[in-house]
């Protein structure tokens, strides 16, 4: 992986502005500050070496000249959209979001203006129920090959044999530890929470996100990550309220604090874990042995998409393995597509942060749709944050 003067910086000017624009809209969330350094440079190198060979399936239709996509921060190779514009004449406007809840809020409010967006697995059934996403016309996606996808990661895109979303990439939710500051090795969520109240007092961060913060507190007691049972949630709440005064922050924007050494331990998504470890080797990424979250991000098209032909064309373009491999190198998340995995360099496939051992993956749970809309979990989170 190439190194440049930018690699060690906490952020780059473009990303800083990008972060500010998101904060300005009032949300600090999930994929905030995701790919802070370096990978763009690596990707540019790869792009020159591999070249692009998309399948021109969009030649017949009038695609217009612009479309808009809603996605996560630093989740794409910017060259992808530039090349798409070169091939089709369609300029892609990229909107970045902080949480699935926020995306849903925008789509529920109507007139989002997006022709493609990137929801996470557990939200798709809700979008379908609310009839805000399109049943995909697979004939318009010849580059997608369902037989090459790992069904473990992709099943939630298809409901009653109708495909509403196709997978982008998958990942896990574990925690990152600065092993120079916290020297006792940790392997479980129990140790994460206990350490936060002991050696890591004042130095631990949890997400500002109900799914993972409540879910991983539930794992302390060995309950399901997705539990909605009042007695189990009560135990999780008890733990969260006990930990609260010891925390450094409740925020999903953890990369800057971990990099600056202010925080020593944080809940963490795959991509952030890989980037932190790459730049600061003493930061380790740990999957709790009790389990936790595994997730897949999908592409879907809103029913009220203003430019559906372009939405399909871009989606088909992104499903081309030659294009997708660059996307994976840019955002650092593992692929669900066997064709892409064949193209990925060995050091990526061998990275245990991206592709953990099977015994660590087995206990992980996909987020459940009910957690997204459950008022009980939302109120618990509010009580935790206001405690």
């Amino acid at each position, binding site marked *: 992986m190439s190194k440049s003067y930018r690699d060690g910086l906490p952020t780059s000017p473009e990303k800083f502005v990008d972060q500010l624009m998101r904060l300005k809209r009032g949300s600090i969330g999930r994929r905030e500050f995701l790919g802070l350094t370096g990978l763009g440079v690596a990707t540019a190198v790869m792009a020159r070496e591999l070249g692009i060979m998309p399948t021109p399936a969009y030649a017949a239709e009038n695609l217009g000249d612009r479309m808009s996509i809603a996605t996560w921060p630093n989740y794409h190779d910017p060259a992808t959209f530039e090349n798409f514009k070169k091939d089709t004449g369609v300029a892609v406007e990229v909107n970045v979001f902080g949480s699935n*809840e926020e995306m849903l809020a925008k789509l529920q409010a109507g007139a989002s203006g997006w022709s493609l967006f990137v929801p996470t697995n557990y939200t798709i059934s*809700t979008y379908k129920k609310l009839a805000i996403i399109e049943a995909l016309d697979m004939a318009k996606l010849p580059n997608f090959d369902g037989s090459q996808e790992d069904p473990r990661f992709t099943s939630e895109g298809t409901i009653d044999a109708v495909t509403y979303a196709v997978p982008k990439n998958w990942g896990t939710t574990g925690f990152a530890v600065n092993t120079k500051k916290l020297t006792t090795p940790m392997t479980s969520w129990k140790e994460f929470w206990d350490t936060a109240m002991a050696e890591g007092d*004042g130095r631990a961060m949890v997400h500002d996100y109900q799914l993972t913060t409540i879910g991983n507190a539930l794992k302390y007691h060995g309950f399901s990550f997705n539990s909605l049972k009042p007695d189990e949630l009560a135990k999780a709440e008890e733990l969260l309220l006990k930990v609260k005064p010891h925390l450094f*922050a*409740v925020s999903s924007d953890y990369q800057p*604090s971990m990099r600056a050494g202010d925080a020593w331990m944080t809940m963490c998504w795959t991509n952030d874990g890989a980037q932190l470890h790459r730049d600061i080797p003493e930061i380790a990424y740990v999957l709790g042995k009790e389990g936790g979250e595994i997730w897949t991000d999908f592409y879907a098209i809103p029913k009220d998409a203003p430019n559906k032909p372009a939405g399909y064309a871009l989606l088909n373009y992104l499903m081309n393995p030659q294009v997708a491999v660059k996307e994976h190198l840019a955002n650092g998340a593992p692929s669900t597509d066997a064709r892409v995995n064949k193209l990925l360099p060995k050091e990526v496939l061998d990275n245990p942060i991206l592709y953990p051992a099977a015994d660590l993956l087995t206990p992980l749970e996909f987020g459940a749709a009910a957690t997204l809309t459950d008022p009980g979990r*939302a109120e618990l989170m*509010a009580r935790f*944050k*206001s405690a």
Partner: protein
Amino acid sequence: MRDNFLRKNLVTALLLAPATLWLVVFLVLPFIAIAVFSVGERAPEGGYQAAFTLAQYANLPARATAFWNTMVLAPAGALACLLVAYPVAYYLALRAPERWRLILLALVVIPFWTSLLMRTYAWMYVLGGRGIPALLAYVGIEDIRLINTPGAVLLGIVYGYLPLMILPIYVSLERLDRRLLEASADLGATPVSTFLGVTLRLSLPGVMTGFSLVMILLLGEYLIPTLLGGGKVFFIGNALVDLFLQSRNWPFGSAIAITLVLVSVVVLIAANRISTRLSGARRVDLM
């Protein structure tokens, strides 16, 4: 005569039309929408579902902590701002050399041209581990944590809202009739009692204007506590953001928003009354 009167009225109406239209479209209509939402119900998947219930208002105690934190933060923050701002305004209005005054005033205002978010974000880096603590470690003071503390939040608030406090106080001090100060001294008052009895008293309208301005803005503050406090302290602004964008309980969020507006109005009226009483019979316009 009558024609003239009508014409005058027409001109007045035309001149007021843009402002009225603006207020109706961007203030009255949204306010009505929020009021309607606030008596509705949360749809099962989130959002709004038509209903007529006061359940959202009955549920307000669920955010009691957020209201309480805000009611403490807003006056405390405004008071801290006042303590820093008054000496600055006093110096600018009464002590600074005439030719420097405009430049000094500009220096107070210029930082305000940059977005509050940018300036707060800059503090994150200044107070973070690579900022001041790194400098302190360099001179041998190790392991100081500044970011995500109540002190950092207070600093952010004072820094962010200072110009709003300085300017109204400056204006009221600048209009102060200097002869009153001389008269006070001639009649044997000490500088301290002149300050307390004349200067401070006559600048109270400005103080109350600044205080209410800062306090009302602080009632809706969520950015500074989130960025400099680590999101560990929950204010009513944070509760609103979460209710609209995360749990999507729009009716409950609307009920809180309406309550917040009512509280702000009460604060304004109270501040107006107090300053009218303190400064004698003089009317003070806060807005």
